[in-house]
């Protein structure tokens, strides 16, 4: 191929503009044995971008536990696969779309949902549920309201149209996200165990097929600059935002699943970040093969697209697959029926090289394997964060009025009801949602069976900020606990690691700390990581996001009739607290919202206690002895009981055991590994003796009665007043009234 002389002298500086370091460019020269052309340089730069290569994080991700007897496929494929019995697997993953959502919240969030759905159905699964984890800036920040409206609109707009229920998630606010919101989306799908599809290409001579939407100039990184430098065409600055087309995605799901029911597909891969580039490299690379593509055959939305543009386009709703030879017509019939583009664009070769042709010329010719084998990997320097002192409960003032403090807490942005959000999501479509949003974990029936999956996303960034290691462990433990609360057996997690600039040692320290904490928790709880995603550089200036390792977990209910919910059921029943209360107030919501302090060490995480207490609670739920269950998390025991009361409108009288923990610390402390259970009087008595025998701390803390919440006979507050407060903030805020 010929490289025009004018291009050559620009190439090295262009490499810098494309984000390749001097060393990386040198490495690229070595691999190629010559100077790359623009297309090739573009390919190197996206393949080796942080986003695609995980070059700063790989070293640490490798340390996460990823195996268990039920793990069918861990990290490395499009999504993780776990065996859920009965010949079925659950396939799931979580992914970030932070930056695009900040630029254009509706489309950014929408395409985030589209992308994660594709990761899951690419593997042969029918998506059955979506979840999302959202972090916004200070509600008072001028941008926040618009961002919330756009992101929620986009998630709903996409998910509702595609017809996959959005069943859960979380949404909190903190000034540290003012300039960098986090939008993490998770999809869970179901497939038959023997019908899982992988990206690994095989079979020299097999056709490479493109399906879905046409390729446009969407989201091409640096495209403007490239065309300016190379004078391809002078145009108005191209938007780098992609627009989602959920209708096409829905058709793509149905068409792919229809084709997957045949045996025509050898391998399949969605075109996500870095589109055709990463999908073709991934398929060929995993199969140890070469691939030849005729770019003229790629369905294009716009005229005169260059090879560079076609390869780097991030147009949505596209897939690449390898078919068995001779099956093209059969496949084409299916895609025609669904009115989707279908094109054979290339073949698999034995050369080990990616060769692109356009207009009869070679547009790129590069080896496949070395790009991933010699991919840069960095051991970035990191410093551990100084430990924060523990806050003694006695040093924290008690509130003047406990009931008012409770009201303040359940009405604050982080704890306020997120109904305004989830009512914009169709959370019931597909007809299997057993636990709608509002519980600890969503519960979705496995269609046509008596079993169900439980799923949730969680993370407490303020703990991670205070102590990354504890925070990382806590996030995994809270997910495990929330799945336990509905009576399900936790199986595995996916994660989305959202951090600042990894070139700053203290940020890297947060990352390493969180990973270490997560690893410990995963090991202790037999809760491996099967997929995940990393989003770095979430900072503007010197302010970065709170370290936020969002964790999404999946568990199984072997008998869906045993599933449990948070709402109080019956006056006269008693409340039992499982787990030890020491009154830990450091880094608590009480400290932040009532005392305006964000200091202190987070509550310690005792993984052995987590496991013991959780297993104990789950067994009682499965045995049918529990009538409601909720874990203690943000805001502590008092908030947990209030949430149980608000769910159904019944009240409770708390009578807390006397001891050395001050009352306010007992009520608002955020000690981990705790659950509140509603039980019939007689069952409670049995449970308390069982707990004693098994070494599980448990105590009777009250009974269900009336429509008020009281503490030791004092501080009465009506549940309806609590509910009104809890429901008020978000709608008022979104309409500009708060």
């Amino acid at each position, binding site marked *: 191929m010929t490289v025009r002389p004018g291009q050559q002298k620009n190439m090295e500086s262009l490499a810098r503009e494309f984000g390749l370091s001097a060393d990386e460019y040198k490495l690229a020269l070595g691999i190629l044995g010559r100077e790359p052309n623009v297309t090739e340089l573009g390919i190197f730069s996206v393949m080796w971008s942080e986003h695609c290569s995980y070059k700063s994080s790989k070293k640490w991700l490798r340390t996460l536990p990823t195996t268990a007897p039920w793990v069918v496929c861990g990290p490395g494929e499009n999504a993780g696969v776990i065996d859920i019995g009965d010949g079925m697997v659950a396939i799931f993953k979580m992914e970030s779309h932070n930056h695009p959502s900040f*630029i*254009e919240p*509706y*489309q950014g969030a929408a395409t985030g949902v589209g992308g994660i759905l594709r990761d899951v159905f690419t593997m042969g699964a029918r998506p059955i549920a979506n979840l999302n984890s959202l972090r916004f800036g200070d509600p008072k920040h001028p941008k926040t309201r618009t961002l919330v409206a756009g992101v929620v609109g986009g998630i709903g707009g996409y998910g509702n149209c595609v017809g996959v229920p959005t069943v859960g998630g979380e949404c909190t606010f903190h000034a540290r996200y003012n300039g960098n919101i986090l939008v993490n989306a998770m999809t869970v799908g179901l497939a038959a165990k023997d019908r899982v599809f992988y990206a690994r290409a095989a079979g020299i001579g097999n056709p490479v097929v493109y399906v879905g*939407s046409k390729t*446009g*100039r*969407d989201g091409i990184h640096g495209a403007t600059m490239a065309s300016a430098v190379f004078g391809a065409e002078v*145009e*108005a600055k*191209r*938007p780098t*935002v*992609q*627009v*989602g*087309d959920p*209708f*096409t995605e829905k058709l793509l799901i149905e068409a792919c699943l229809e084709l997957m029911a045949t045996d025509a597909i050898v391998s399949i891969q969605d075109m996500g970040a870095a589109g055709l580039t990463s999908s073709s490299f991934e398929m060929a690379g995993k199969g140890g093969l070469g691939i030849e593509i005729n770019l003229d055959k790629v369905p294009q*939305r*716009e005229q005169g697209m260059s090879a560079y543009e076609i390869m780097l386009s991030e*147009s*949505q709703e596209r897939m690449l697959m390898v078919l068995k030879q001779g099956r093209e017509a059969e496949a084409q019939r299916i895609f025609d029926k669904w*009115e989707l583009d279908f094109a054979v664009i290339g073949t698999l070769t034995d050369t080990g090289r990616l060769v692109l042709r356009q207009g009869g010329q070679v547009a790129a010719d590069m080896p496949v394997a070395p790009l991933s084998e010699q991919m840069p990997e960095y051991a970035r320097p990191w410093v551990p964060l100084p430990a924060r002192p523990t806050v003694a409960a006695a040093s924290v003032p008690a509130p003047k009025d406990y009931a008012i403090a409770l009201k303040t807490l359940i009405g604050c942005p982080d704890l306020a009801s997120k109904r305004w959000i989830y009512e914009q999501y169709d959370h019931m479509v597909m007809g299997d949602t057993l636990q709608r949003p509002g519980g600890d974990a969503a519960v979705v029936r496995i269609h046509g069976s008596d079993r169900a999956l439980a799923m949730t996303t969680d993370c407490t960034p303020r703990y991670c900020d205070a102590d990354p290691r504890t925070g990382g462990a806590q996030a995994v433990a809270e997910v495990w606990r929330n799945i336990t609360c509905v009576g399900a057996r936790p199986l595995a997690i996916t994660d989305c690691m959202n951090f600042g600039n990894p070139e700053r040692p203290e940020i890297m320290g947060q990352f390493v700390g969180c990973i270490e904490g997560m690893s410990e928790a995963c090991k202790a709880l037999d809760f491996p990581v099967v997929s995940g995603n990393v989003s770095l550089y979430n900072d503007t200036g010197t302010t970065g996001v709170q370290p936020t390792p969002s964790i999404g977990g999946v568990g199984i209910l072997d008998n869906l009739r045993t599933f449990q919910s948070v709402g109080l059921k019956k006056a006269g029943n008693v409340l039992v607290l499982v787990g030890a209360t020491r009154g830990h107030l450091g880094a608590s919501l009480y400290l932040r919202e009532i005392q305006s302090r964000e200091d202190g060490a987070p509550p310690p995480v005792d993984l052995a206690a987590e496991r013991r207490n959780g297993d104990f609670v789950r067994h009682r739920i499965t045995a049918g002895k529990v009538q409601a269950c909720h874990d203690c998390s943000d805001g502590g025991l008092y908030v947990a009981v209030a949430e149980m009361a608000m769910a159904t409108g019944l009240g409770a009288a708390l009578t807390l055991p006397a001891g050395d923990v001050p009352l306010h610390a007992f009520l608002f402390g955020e000690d981990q590994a705790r659950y509140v259970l509603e039980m019939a009087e007689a069952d409670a008595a049995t449970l308390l003796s069982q707990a004693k025998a098994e070494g599980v701390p448990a105590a009777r803390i009250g009974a269900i009665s009336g429509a008020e919440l009281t503490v030791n006979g004092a501080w009465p507050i009506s549940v309806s007043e609590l509910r009104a407060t809890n429901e008020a903030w978000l709608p008022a805020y979104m309409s500009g009234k708060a």
Partner: protein
Amino acid sequence: MKARVHITLKQGVLDPQGKAIANALHALGFPAVAGVRQGKYLELDLGNADKATAEKDVRTMCERLLANTVIEDYAVEVLT
């Protein structure tokens, strides 16, 4: 004073609606339709204002609320 505002997708931005409409028109028996782009059209009643202020105001409204300038262009026309 009235204003008419046209909001259209920037060139190169995918228009799923336009695409679907074009397909539907083909199926309805208009195969010659080569493409459709869908935009928004707003009519604003501005009360009493002078034309120059009105035009400036409507542009500000477009920038701040009516159009999503990341992906959309807008055109303002003030009628008297």
